[in-house]
């Protein structure tokens, strides 16, 4: 009997570890593949031109141009704009849900917020085109509502649930001692939140923001539909922009495999990969520190 059990144990462990190794191989493979393809770009395009050149025009009438600066700035503008919307709303909602709302209300609202996260970005983009951008054009007297501002709103809505969920989790996980001791000393609820909870949860909330940032950087379809997509370097919030994600999505359809354009798009993909990976990595470390500090 023991022998049989031992074999079974070993087999199960083997099976599970095989699954893990497969998963790991896949995930490493993704990075490796991207890297191999993308890095070839630099055999023909100098890194300076790529990263600092401000014109991206692979199909130009004359010489193709390979500078991603305006694309990067496009990504940064939308990300920044979306966070401006999502951070205040997000943290405020998180505080409300975790500290102020009655449990019944919290239980009702939390799933609703989760549902926003489930809405596909194309649908938000659709609403952006049909409803939001004409509205913005009208409100601000612009000739067109397809610009960085509209994109920021759309991406902001997408990022909001992430920030709310994680911030709320962080706040709820703070031990009750914090609340009780603060109130015992005579603080009002708001004072308690402001002076005790928020500082304690700060690193966790920062992490939540970073995760939201990662999401904003990676958003493709919602932005593609309302960003205006012009190659020029954006100067104001009401200029059209062309973030890296939208650029890849648009141009990948026309590249012949193995061509320089193909490799260049992979290089952009690599940049995106590294950016989001690093942001997520940092925020993870912050969250882990936070959790370790306050959980027993």
């Amino acid at each position, binding site marked *: 009997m023991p022998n049989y059990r031992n074999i079974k*144990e070993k087999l*199960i*462990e083997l*099976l*599970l*570890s095989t*699954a*893990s190794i*497969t*998963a*790991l191989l896949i*995930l490493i493979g*993704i990075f490796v593949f*991207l890297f191999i*393809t993308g890095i070839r770009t630099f055999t023909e395009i100098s890194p300076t031109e790529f990263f600092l050149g401000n014109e991206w025009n692979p199909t130009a009438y004359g010489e193709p141009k390979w500078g991603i600066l305006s694309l990067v700035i496009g990504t940064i503008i939308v990300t920044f704009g979306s966070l401006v919307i999502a951070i205040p*709303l*997000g943290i*405020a*909602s998180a505080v*409300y*849900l975790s500290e*102020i*709302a009655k449990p019944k209300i919290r239980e009702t*609202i939390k799933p*609703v*917020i989760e*549902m*926003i996260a*489930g*809405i*596909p970005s*194309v*649908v938000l*983009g*659709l*609403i952006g085109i*049909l409803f939001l951008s004409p509205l913005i054009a009208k409100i601000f007297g612009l000739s067109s509502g397809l610009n960085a501002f509209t994109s920021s709103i759309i991406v902001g*809505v997408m990022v*909001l649930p992430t920030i709310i969920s994680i911030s709320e989790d962080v706040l709820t996980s703070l031990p009750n001692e914090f609340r009780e001791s603060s109130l015992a000393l005579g603080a*009002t609820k*708001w*004072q308690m939140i402001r002076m005790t909870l928020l500082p304690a949860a700060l690193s966790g909330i920062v992490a939540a923001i970073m995760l939201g940032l990662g999401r904003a950087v*990676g*958003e*493709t*379809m919602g932005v593609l*539909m309302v960003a205006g997509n012009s190659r020029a370097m954006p100067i104001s919030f009401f200029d059209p922009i062309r973030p890296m*994600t939208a650029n*890849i*999505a648009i141009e*990948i*359809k026309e590249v012949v495999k193995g061509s320089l354009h193909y490799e260049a798009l*992979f290089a952009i*993909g690599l940049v995106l*990969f590294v950016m*989001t*990976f690093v942001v*997520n*990595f940092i925020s*993870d470390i912050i969250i882990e520190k936070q959790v370790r500090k306050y959980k027993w």
Partner: protein
Amino acid sequence: MVNEYVRQNIYFLLFRIATFLSVVFLLFILLYILKEGIGVIDIKFLTSMWSHRDITQGGIFPAIIGTIFLAIGVSIISIPIGICTAIYLNEYAKENLLTRTIKLAIRNLAGVPSIVYGIFGLAFFVLFLKLGGSLIAASLTLGCMTLPWIITASEEALKSVPLSFREGSYALGATKWQTVRKNVLPHSFSGMLTGSILGISRAIGETAPIIMIGATFFMGYLPSSPFDKFMALPYHLFILATQHSSPYAREYALGTSLVLIALIFMLNSGFFILRYKLRKKKEW
């Protein structure tokens, strides 16, 4: 002191408004789509093949089928591997720097943009493995994308089971697998299931990866093998919104969104209810 209370009330009001706004965003989106899109939904819309010449005569049936096939494909690929990996990493693997790094890396991969997975899928599955633009290439690509998500969610579910459960089981002489199977899994199963379903519903809403891997706009036939091209709701919706010239295209785009959202919600809420029921059974 009075000042403090006034201040508190002001802030709390602001917070209430903020939450209210967040909720309003969602409700607005849903209501808008419902109001504008419901007009086109009828049996014909849902069950007929797509007609290009007169879109009022056709339906989005093939797109629904395509999306369902994708959902099945992604589930088969990512759920078993994902859950097994989570179990291994959390229960079997030794707690050392390597394991922690791996877990961290996987969690971060869940945050990588879908378009990056898309170009990877294009380069690897479509071109390198010569699978062509097909259901299976798309399923594999979306599967890779969903894998880190499912692993992470399952891991969280496993971690939430207190250590004491496992220790008690070992103390009684159980083997590792017995412990996992009888003590840990039943309690984390609902969490893992929810995580998987959320991952799948995220995958079927994705457009960017499938654009380059086999989604088509018009197909007169249903995909009959994994190597066929396919229609899918998100891509269909995208084209209707940006490229179709029929005056009805917008309504149809909204109707398609409604169907897509309904599908996702059904998936989520079905398992939400399931999780609730499973949770009730747990007694600790």
